[in-house]
């Protein structure tokens, strides 16, 4: 550690240092570069978010695993023991979709209000504002991995081997989830500055969205037959979260067709019987779309950001 610098001219000259420009319009590339250059701040905000959440609690960050484990236990009791719906190990099916949804929902709900909530900071300290929304997404990513760990433990405990081959697609699927979530979080945080109802509206819409995604029910069983006759399958997949959820379910729940545990041997189609290649292609496609969505979201944010100071 260098002690108090000696008085005198500093050796460092600014002659060659790059010039930063502050102006009304910033190009998309510059925006992204700015966000990247402040990744330490992003990390710092994520850590402080998590620290504050578990401040003064004895178990600390372990709560992010204890809570979902407990939820999982309740689901096990409800769906495997009391309300048998016929799906063997339904708890795995449910939880593999739920962790995806939890990350999406908690990110959007916390990020929508974040710029308004932290107006004091936004008005006084200079940093790319979308970092606030991204830090909420980042915290949700941490909880996501905690829940993924819980899921892995449960899968192992129930002696349910995941589809290892399909697991190769998971990283692509997760990155798409991250990009889509970030895109929506960024845009919503900016819109909420102008229309404060957004925060409440989004909570309602997310409930609807939840049931439009095959998490507590099976797409293949409940929806696909009806859409297929009319050739409208694509409509359901307009919801980008669906593909991600189905991919996660395919990896962890594995079975596409099961024998019901309740009635004498009726067969239930749980998941699409797509090949590995089809899963891969669809996921790569979704990744491309998510990337574009993220750039578009950044551009929209850049437009909306200009007049934050008049609204906050």
């Amino acid at each position, binding site marked *: 550690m260098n002690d108090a610098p000696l008085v005198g*001219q500093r050796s460092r000259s600014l002659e060659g240092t790059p010039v930063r420009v502050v*102006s009304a319009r910033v190009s998309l590339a510059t925006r992204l570069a700015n966000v990247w250059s402040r990744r330490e701040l992003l990390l710092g905000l994520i850590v402080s978010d998590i620290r504050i959440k578990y401040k003064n609690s004895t178990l600390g960050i372990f709560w992010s695993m204890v809570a979902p484990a407990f939820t999982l236990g309740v689901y096990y009791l409800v769906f495997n023991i009391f309300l048998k719906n016929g799906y063997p190990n339904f708890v795995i099916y449910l939880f593999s979709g739920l962790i995806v949804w939890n990350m999406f929902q908690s990110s959007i709900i916390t990020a929508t209000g974040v710029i308004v909530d932290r107006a004091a900071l936004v008005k*006084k300290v200079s940093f790319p504002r979308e970092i606030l929304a991204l830090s909420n997404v980042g915290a949700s990513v941490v909880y996501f991995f905690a829940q993924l760990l819980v899921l892995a433990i449960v899968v192992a405990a129930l002696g349910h081997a995941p589809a290892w081959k399909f697991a190769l697609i998971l990283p692509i699927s997760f990155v798409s989830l991250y990009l889509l979530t970030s895109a929506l979080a960024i845009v919503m945080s900016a819109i909420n500055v102008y229309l404060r109802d957004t925060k409440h509206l989004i909570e309602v819409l997310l409930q609807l969205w939840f049931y439009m995604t095959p998490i507590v029910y099976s797409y293949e069983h409940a929806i696909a037959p009806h859409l297929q006759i009319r050739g409208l399958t694509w409509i359901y997949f307009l919801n980008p979260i669906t593909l991600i959820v189905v991919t996660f379910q395919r990896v962890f729940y594995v079975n596409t067709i099961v024998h019901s545990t309740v009635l004498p041997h009726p067969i239930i189609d749980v998941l699409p019987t797509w090949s590995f290649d089809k899963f891969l292609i669809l996921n790569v496609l979704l990744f491309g779309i998510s990337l574009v969505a993220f750039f578009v979201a950044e551009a929209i944010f850049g437009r909306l950001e200009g007049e934050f100071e008049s609204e906050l």
Partner: protein
Amino acid sequence: MTTVIEVEGVSKKFKIHHERHQSLKERLLHPRSGSTEVFEALQDINFTVGEGETLGIVGHNGSGKSTLLKCICGVLKPTTGEIRLRGSLAALLELGAGFQTELSGRDNIYLYGAMLGFSRRMVDGIFDDVVAFSEIEQFIDTQVKFYSSGMYVRLAFAVAVNVDPDILVVDEVLAVGDERFQAKCVDRIKRFQQEGRTILLVTHNADQVRALCDRAVVLDSGEMIADGPTRDSLRIFREHLMTDAVEHDPSHLLGTIHIESVSTPSGSFEVKSGAGLHFDVAVTAQTAYSGNFVMELFTRTGLLVSRSDAQGSPVNLLPGRNVVGVDLGQIPLLDGVYDLNVGIVDPRGHNVIAWSERAASIQVTYDGREGGLVELDASIRQQ
């Protein structure tokens, strides 16, 4: 000299909403109502700051100086024009705005450092200095919400001045903490100057600018009205304050009294150190007025040598020309040129009624051997 800050054609417009419709229902019900007015906080500001310069930005409240500063720091984006910056920048704007009160002082040092754009490794390197400077060693692991407001601000200041910025931006924050801490802050700023860093100081305190800046920019309702050596800019600033005050003067006194001239019987302002000086101040008044006479004496480097008691010298001005005689019994100053400001203030010493900045310059000659500002006439002998 490398240009560190370049402000080019910067304007900033704010929309002021008279009726805020921020909820969806209100927007739907009143799509057009709620007038918005455009307020021009800055109009076409241009200046550059070189490496190692200390620039003062002066203006009264609402002149746009804080807006300009926020644009330079990147908190606000200019509506038109652009600002080009070289090197890292640390801003002392509303200290502690970035603090998370639920976290400890230790965590906040890292978080605040990151907000200012400094890496964790850099903050590691200066951590001990920050803690020592802020004088809160024993509370460093306490949640910031339990800090006193003084501790809060000291911690924020300590982070900002220890992170080794190339450009330091200071906004009216020298008014924080007790006198000892303030002195420490001024010391730190002076050290930054000696180290050749670039400093922007925003204030409405002319004394501070005089003491710290080589150059000053004066803003008035969003326009830049002066950019030059501190003394010249401050003169324009004061004159502007006077004309401004004339416009908003309830008693219509301002502008009725003028300081015409300052003269000595011999016509010369040269004086030997230790000798006295008599000078006459000619004041014309349109109506009779009883107020107080004040005078200030500054060194050429901007150090205040003396300011007379604003309530101590009552004068009764009669309509027409008045002469106020001033006797300086003996001037103990050493060699140098000293600038004299004279003015008339109201009986309570609160408002300036008439002012003349650098009304005269007194040249003192000294042939003794003491150095510094004043002769103490020390006699030293061994007992």
